[in-house]
């Protein structure tokens, strides 16, 4: 059986699709959109931890609130001071 050359595939397929990575979009440090979330793991005013397929993303800050939640995305607003990725 012929082996698939991964490097060729990598050049054509988007990285987020290939590795199930979340798409994170920041608006300054006031708002962040996480696309590809599978659930909320921790929700406090200082820390919000979001589960995705590939990793857990944690946002640290002040007055953090979940502005909007759907089955695949989350919008967090507040003053974000730190972001942490746990794979």
């Amino acid at each position, binding site marked *: 059986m012929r082996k698939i050359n991964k490097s060729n595939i990598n050049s054509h397929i988007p990285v987020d699709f290939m590795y199930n990575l979340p798409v994170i979009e920041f608006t300054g440090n006031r708002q962040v959109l996480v696309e590809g979330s599978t659930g909320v793991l921790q929700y406090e005013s200082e820390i919000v931890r979001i589960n995705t397929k590939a990793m857990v993303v944690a946002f640290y800050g002040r007055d*953090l609130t979940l502005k909007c939640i759907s089955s695949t995305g989350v919008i967090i607003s507040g003053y974000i001071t730190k972001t942490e990725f746990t794979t």
Partner: protein
Amino acid sequence: MLIKLIRWLRGYVVFTVKGRFPERFINLLNQRGILYWSFVPCKDGHKGSMSLYDYLHIRKIARHSHVRLRKQKAVGLPFFIKNNKKRKGIFIGGVCVLLIMAFLNQFIWVIEIDGTKRISDVQVLQALQESGLEIGTYKGNMDVDTIEKDTILRVPDIGWMSINAINNIAKVEIKEKSKSPKISKSQSPCNLKASCDGVITKTTVVNGNCLVKRGTAVVKNQLLVSSVVEDNNQNLAYVHSQGEILADVNEEKTFTVNLDNSYVLDKDYTEKSRLDFLRFSIPLEFSSSNNGEKLSVFKRYRMSVNGVALPLGKTLCRNYYCNNTEKLSEENGINILKKKIKLQECFEHSKDKIKSKKINFTQNNKKSTAVVSYVINKNIAQKQKLSVRS
């Protein structure tokens, strides 16, 4: 705003979530597609809002996620009805308001006229009233086509009109007839002569031979445009001279007021107010009437809320009685003279341009006199027919 209103109509609950896994509670709500809002962390837990129907169906989710729900506040129409079940007056009042609104909605509250320039709104309103449209007209009986046709017949200057009854407002759009330009039918030869002394500022000659130019000083009866014209073949011809010759003219007018005469006083009057509701008018005061001739001035006020006119209003009638007369003071005499001057300018010089004006007031022999010196820019061309003598 609309979302808030819908939420209030449906009723919603503000609740707190306390327990071990509030995050799981959120995830389960998302999975079930249950809508919630304003979900924020607070002291010892979280706080959020949810519709009444959904709140009654999330007990199982709360149990699964080991959280305890506490209702903090219930907001909305269902709760208001529940709390005020015994107060039947509120509901009867609400129904009455709705019925009154539905009833009043069947009538015209306001008539708005748009597009009038030469025709006065009062004239149009009067014609509309005679045709069957006025404040308080029942919308069901309103035949718009007939009213439009009748009004056009009553006011000949209206070229086209349309009446749109939107809610309680009758919007009347009018296009006036355009006036046809004056064409002189007479073709008999005539000259243009100066009607008074002046200095020419502009000449516009349509027909004839212009003999003056800008800056020329002319005297009364001087020939301005001659009717004798020479064509290319050097033949002489007589034409009907037409044109406009503008000139700066000095004019002096004298106005007098006799201070001995008696005048109607402004300060002695009686007032009566009436409450207007649609086409009905209810007197609010019953003051005794003063005998004698009187001059009545009406002022109408309309109530409006946020720019929306209501069918309620007030009419103030001020009666000035002619038997309460007084001799004029010097100051009042001057005021009357000023008014006279303004009126004269409005009517006599409406088409002319007043370049400068000087007023001299004098008082002598119980008379107040004003001498006004004007410099007016006006058309001084005056037609004069040619006469043939044998």
